[in-house]
């Protein structure tokens, strides 16, 4: 295998050398572009001053202290965790049942079921939020976090369903058949064979759903009024201008998401390795 290697090759001609410099330089520029806002966000969360702009003074943990003392932010954080956990649990549960039903029983018109369940992916969150908002108005239901949970299940269900469905395999089906032949009831098969074997897929679906719900703004914005989720609270603090406390909360949200991602990847790959 020939590698015109940036990493390995000793430049053989001036042209090639120039090419390598250009390539490295370009990658460096793009990565600087990609990381610039994140670095600015994190750095100025430690700003010892009232505005998160250069020159940098500090570091100080003052804004993190203010953040944790900020009752509105903390309430929004709790709301977001609650909405995320509830909507992800419902989406993963419903998605699992549907995927299981489709993969194992192959009902007639399965493609219709699949089409309907995947459909919300094609519609912008803004329009989904608008639709729910119109229906809630019609029914005279006030805006609330419960409505946000409902909306987040709508956007997460297609993904949870698709993730679980992609993890269904004939090998698992044979295991289930074996359990059934040995006299296990349907419920026992589901609880003792299907779910444990599918655990990595279920966890992945749950984590993906949680991340999306945790980050979702427009639906939450349209469907809440006083009790809001974290992105909505951050949104209202942005409207008052640049503020180091917003940097602090943004940094924390980023670290939490990356942490969650790392844990999920570790757990899923561990579980998959000892899987059938």
């Amino acid at each position: 295998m020939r590698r015109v290697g940036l990493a390995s090759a000793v430049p053989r001609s001036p042209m090639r050398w120039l090419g390598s410099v250009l390539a490295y330089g370009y990658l460096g520029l793009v990565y600087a572009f990609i990381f610039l806002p994140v670095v600015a966000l994190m750095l100025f969360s430690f700003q010892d001053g009232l505005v998160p702009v250069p020159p940098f003074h500090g570091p100080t943990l003052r804004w993190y202290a203010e953040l944790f003392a900020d009752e509105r932010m903390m309430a929004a954080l709790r709301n977001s965790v609650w909405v995320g956990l509830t909507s992800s649990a419902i989406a993963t549960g419903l998605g699992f049942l549907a995927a299981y039903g489709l993969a194992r029983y192959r009902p007639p018109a399965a493609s219709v079921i699949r089409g309907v369940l995947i459909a919300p992916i094609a519609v912008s969150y803004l329009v989904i939020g608008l639709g729910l908002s119109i229906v809630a108005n019609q029914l005279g239901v006030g805006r609330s976090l419960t409505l946000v949970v409902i909306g987040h299940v709508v956007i997460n269900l297609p993904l949870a369903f698709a993730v679980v469905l992609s993890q269904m395999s004939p090998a698992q089906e044979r295991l289930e058949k074996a359990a059934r032949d040995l006299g296990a009831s349907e419920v026992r098969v589901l609880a003792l064979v299907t779910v444990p074997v599918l655990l990595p897929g279920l966890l992945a679906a749950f984590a993906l759903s949680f991340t999306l719900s945790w980050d979702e703004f427009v639906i939450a914005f349209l469907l809440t009024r006083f009790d809001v989720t974290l992105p909505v609270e951050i949104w209202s603090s942005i409207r008052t201008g640049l503020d180091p406390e917003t940097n602090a909360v943004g940094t924390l949200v980023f670290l939490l998401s990356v942490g969650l991602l790392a844990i999920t990847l570790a757990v899923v790959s561990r579980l998959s390795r000892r899987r059938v």
Partner: protein
Amino acid sequence: MAAVGRTRPEGASTGRGWALAGPALAWTTAFFLAPMVFVLAYSLFRRVGGELVASLSFENYRRAFTEAAFRTALVNSLEVSVITVIASVLVAYPVAYLLAYRMPRRWGQVLLALAVLPFWTSYVVRSYSWLLVLAKEGVVNRTLMALGLVAEPITIANTRAATVIGFVHFFTMLMALTIYASLVQIPESYRKAARDLGASGWRTLVHVTLPLSLPGVVVGAFLTFVLAIGDYITPQILGGAQELLLPQAIMLQVQRSGDFPMAAALSAVLLLVIGLAYLASARRFGLGAR
């Protein structure tokens, strides 16, 4: 998923599949399909003097395409989304190419993972981060002024440029992923054969690599277009309210005027544009790849 019932469990199993899918179907029907029907119905209603009138009129659609404010929003949205798609492809393709072909596979994957790391900042926070960088007193202006390159801060925030920068930042990451996935699927022997037959590196790129990686470009471009044109957050935070994009116009109808029928009609227009984008690119999705 296997399509045909090979080992269909005997007996009452036909209904069981539907029964298991039932709760999910019910949820999607009640909270997605029904609201979409309401959106379409509302788009035909009128709002007269603050009162909702259930009618069957295309007046909202006529206004969406003829009234200056709405038509400009639609045109702005189309322009910004197309510029975003083109700029993102131009930035991301060389990145994906270098990571796929000029680096050892392991390094390429590490760098790719690094490139998508900022994906995990919250979307609202990411737009705010760009505000830190682009604002009048922000990182870019302070740096330019400290270097003596400009005397007065340049205006980037609250312009279309800021929206496009925010979009390109986000979608370069996405596009690098889809293009990279396409590039690593091209068998190395193809490029080698082209070189052995005497094609220059450039010709190999244009006549072999580029056409074979087109599916990745089209998938990335489609996703970018759809997500960009439907996004409210980035234009609102970075672009500001001077030049409205379609999602901002929709939100304005809801928040400011409480005109749900007009918002519904504009939403239907948005969905129509997305549908057309799908039709335009769908034929190309399957090309090559395998």
